[in-house]
């Protein structure tokens, strides 16, 4: 899977290989913005901790973690990050919450959290274009804008996902994801 996120917090690129359905290993790069312009480069490990399969939906708890290097104004530091993602998704509704902890050596220690709610205006099948209307709220105490709201539209076709939004602090969000 390859995923790129471009939003008011910065630019992220993830490349992951799912070696068993519950675990993926990959590579994570993030260029932070709207605060300290830290560049993080780490391997990452993603694990599905728990899944609930329901008749009309699915609930999950994931852990994502990485350890590598952080670079800020000529200073390289070891860094660690870990996050949890809890979500519930049906063909109509989407809910998620993600807290994340980042330790960039003596550059910065930060915590951020993100919540999302979404609704599909129509129920699409596998071979149809799926459309979601979503609303995201971010809380980033280490950034200039602590609370940011972003309405967005998600398009989803088979293994291709594309999102575009516009945040309350006037940044365009463009995210995409491809599964192989």
């Amino acid at each position, binding site marked *: 899977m390859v995923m790129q996120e471009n939003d008011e917090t910065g630019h992220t690129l993830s490349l992951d290989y799912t070696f068993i359905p519950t675990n993926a290993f990959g590579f994570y790069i993030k260029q932070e913005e709207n605060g300290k312009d830290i560049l993080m480069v780490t391997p990452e490990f993603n694990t599905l901790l728990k899944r609930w399969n329901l008749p009309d*939906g699915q609930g999950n708890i994931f852990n994502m973690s990485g350890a590598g290097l952080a670079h800020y104004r000529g200073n390289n530091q070891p860094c660690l990050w870990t996050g949890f993602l809890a979500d519930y998704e049906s063909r109509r509704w989407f809910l998620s919450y993600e807290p994340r902890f980042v330790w960039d050596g003596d550059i910065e220690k930060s915590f951020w959290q993100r919540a999302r709610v979404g609704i599909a205006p129509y129920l699409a099948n596998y071979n149809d274009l799926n459309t979601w209307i979503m609303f995201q709220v971010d809380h980033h105490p280490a950034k200039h804008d602590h609370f940011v709201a972003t309405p967005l539209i998600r398009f989803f076709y088979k293994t291709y996902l594309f999102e575009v939004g516009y945040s309350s602090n006037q940044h365009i969000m463009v995210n995409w994801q491809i599964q192989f």
Partner: protein
Amino acid sequence: MKKYLLTIIVIFGLTAAVSADTIKATVNGMVCGFCATGIEKTFRAQPEVRAVNVDLENKLVTIQTKQGQTLDDSKIKKLLGNAGYSVVAVARQK
């Protein structure tokens, strides 16, 4: 009489041996294209499988096996379970 009986048994046996299965598994937890793709990949990798189709609306995974081959219920449940989904029921037709 014995000859006729034997012929019938042989024909019936051959028909059963070369026929393919259409298996319909009702599955909980399938909600999106990523789910469907993962399930299709899993079953396409099985040598017994000729075709697989995921129907999110009806929560159905339809598997067609190759002539003379089959997938037993326990293997279907194991494959879907390992992929992260729960099998509610398996129905099959020749």
